[in-house]
């Protein structure tokens, strides 16, 4: 009964007077995925740090986050308490799904975390270095099959960028899309494909146990604790980060936007958030303000270009 009482007070607060510090976060994915985990970790930290009294997380899954994004843009116009979690996958999904709503229809606040792509081959593969893989790709792009996540997603885009940088026609890449990293991992372990690409976390335990060979990571500089060169070191200028961000509703005044940005900055700098990043193994890639907007615009135009070159977007 006590629980009901507390719940009723909380619910009453939501229904009648959403004070400035009460947030509703939309996670545009099913429970358990990266965006859902981000939203729920934000919920915990925002409440623990006293930045917000009451935070609700709502899942609106589907189509690379575009269904949640569309619902968010239409239903929370001008609401300073509504937030949505999103990320780089959304940028591609908006283009491939021809989504009527884009990131221009919301107010991006800040990039929170990110994960870099890892390129692996089975342990028994004759390809020893990333250079070997690029050579094979140049010789016959069709003979190099890549297993990765969904078509048009971060993994697919990264392969397209690698091909382009290596002077190979991106439409010629032989990319095999799997639903989620797990199934792709099985195909790589079973030696069904030449190489695999996904977020490093997906491969970590296999790399450590020696069943997969890590060839390269897609970061700007080498990452602490990961024994692999960057793609850049091999002479291809490819940096891909599968970042996650938080955005606010469209139609906010400058003061409202500043208030949300301040809250998110407090969150990102807080001890409990830093602790979460550590336990989840997420990189802290916090970026806000004009710097983030600039980076976002750059990512969107680069993604559009490469998706057109791969042939997924007309």
């Amino acid at each position, binding site marked *: 009964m006590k629980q009901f009482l507390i719940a009723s007070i909380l619910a009453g607060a939501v229904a009648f007077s959403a004070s400035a510090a009460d947030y509703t976060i939309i996670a545009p994915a099913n*429970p*358990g995925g990266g965006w859902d985990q981000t939203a729920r970790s934000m919920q915990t930290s925002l409440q623990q740090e006293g930045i917000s009294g009451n935070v609700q997380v709502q899942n609106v*899954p*589907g*189509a690379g986050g*575009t*269904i949640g994004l*569309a619902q968010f843009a239409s239903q929370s116009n001008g609401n300073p308490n509504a937030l949505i979690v999103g990320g780089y996958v959304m940028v591609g999904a908006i283009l*491939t*799904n*021809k989504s009527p709503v884009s990131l221009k229809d919301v107010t991006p606040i800040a990039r929170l975390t990110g994960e870099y792509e890892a390129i692996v081959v089975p342990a028994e593969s004759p390809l020893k270095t990333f250079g070997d893989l690029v050579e094979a790709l140049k010789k016959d792009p*069709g*003979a190099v*099959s890549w297993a990765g996540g*969904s*078509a*048009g997603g971060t993994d697919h885009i990264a392969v397209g960028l690698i091909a382009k940088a290596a002077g190979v026609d991106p439409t010629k890449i*032989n990319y*095999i*899309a799997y*639903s989620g990293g*797990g*199934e792709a*991992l*099985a*195909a790589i*372990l*079973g*030696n*069904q*494909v030449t190489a695999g690409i996904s977020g490093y976390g997906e491969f970590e*335990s*296999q790399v*450590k*146990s020696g*069943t997969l060979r890590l060839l390269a990571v897609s970061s700007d500089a080498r990452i602490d604790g990961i024994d692999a060169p960057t793609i850049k070191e091999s002479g291809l200028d490819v940096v891909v980060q599968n970042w996650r961000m938080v955005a606010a509703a469209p139609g906010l005044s400058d003061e409202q936007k500043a208030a949300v940005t301040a809250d998110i900055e407090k969150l990102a700098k807080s001890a409990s958030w830093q602790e979460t990043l550590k336990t989840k193994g997420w990189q802290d890639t916090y970026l806000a303000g004009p710097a983030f907007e600039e980076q976002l615009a750059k990512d969107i135009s680069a993604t559009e270009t490469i998706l057109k070159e791969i042939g*997924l977007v007309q």
Partner: protein
Amino acid sequence: MNTFEFLLHGLSIAMQPMNLLYALIGVTLGTAVGVLPGIGPALTVALLLPVTYKLDPAGSLIMFAGIYYGGMYGGSTTSILLNTPGESSSIVTALEGNKMARAGRGGPALATAAIGSFVAGLIATIALAFIAPFVVKLALVFGPREYFALMVLAFVTVSSAFGDSTLRGLTSLFIGLALATIGIDQLTGQARLSFGVPDLLDGIEVTTLAVAMFAIGESLYIAAQGDRGPDKVEAVKGSVWMTAADWARSWKPWLRGTAIGFPIGAMPAGGAEIGTFLSYATEKRLTKHPEEFGNGAIEGVAGPEAANNASAAGTLVPLLTLGLPTTATAAIMLAGFQQYGLQPGPLLFATNPQLVWGLIASLLIANLMLLVLNLPLVGLWVRLLTIPKPWLYAGILLFATLGTIGANPSPFELGMLLAFGLLGYVMRIFGYPIAPVVVGLILGPLAEQQLRRALSISQGDMTVLFTSPIAAVLLTIAAAALIVPLILRARGRGEVLSQLAASED
């Protein structure tokens, strides 16, 4: 410590009275929630997982195992008694099980399901304990072409659920296949048949279709019979327990179902319910009572139920050894394991033996508890059929929509539930079988994706589909399953002719 000692140690912990109690609570909760139509094992586990967080690791692991097995078994109960399977894995159970229940043999049907689940769960869990690392190596040999061959075999076996007309069976299957193409094409990201409706981009949920076609279609059909419909079902005719003949006809299907279900569940590409289809087809081919199939053959319940439980234990093989969740239930279990500090992956058996063996021991105990709880309850479950129809079916519709609303509370999803319910109703009127629609929706995308992946890896070379030994064997079995009955029929005619000729001498 060696494998066996680890298992004994785990069992000794799981056998403590307090932990046995947790197992019992878990099994009871799991069965109670899982028995509601429209709420399958995945949703049951997701809903009840938080309950386990409050206990110590050993206790929560055991309760979790109980919920998992309870949810699985609960689903079959409603499939058998009410013909309302809430998830893909108990569709086949409903085919024969419900016919048995209507003939007053619901008791034996439930019993063979419970005991079959126990036997399969026991064997499969022990197999998980001792041969998981080998099974997973075998499973990884399966690439796209082998999967495609397996799908072809599964498609051939669907025909055993066609009923009395090939035309209507094929039509049902192809309606399911057409529905399966709705949504984003996984390999190219193109939207197909979604007409700009965002709700269709992710395709049609198998659960929604199954609940609509079975639970809602069935309710409409029975209501439309009015007063004259099938008169009151007699809950118990003959014994409520399995007779000696029932035992004799059940034990082989249990073992065959286990042998089929476990390896298929262990394959890391989803489709764990395919084992139930294959088992049903096998039993139909091998039975000495072919005339009973379609009218309530006990083999058709015993085999698929065993296959279902064995494949559920099988899905733990890639989950524990590779960290790959291959079903929705497994994905939720993965989240659960992480809560207990289990980090599934290739090193798990080496780095965390206590927890792994604790889990396996818990599964064994939960499996036993399930039997202890459910066998005495069979008599009670059967009474469900004696609830007056208005209340019973009103309740079925309540829970059928509850599952859909809980998973996705959108008017569009409920609209689909209604539309497919009406489709199921009309198909029943015209004598179309329902199961092939759902099977088509499950198998269609799997088969298409694997075929296209295989051809993409081979750069368009069709011959690879037949050149792998495993794929070749599977395709040969599929071809034999299609052709042999034709040959036998033709030869049978020939023998009759030669006998006629001989008698003229």
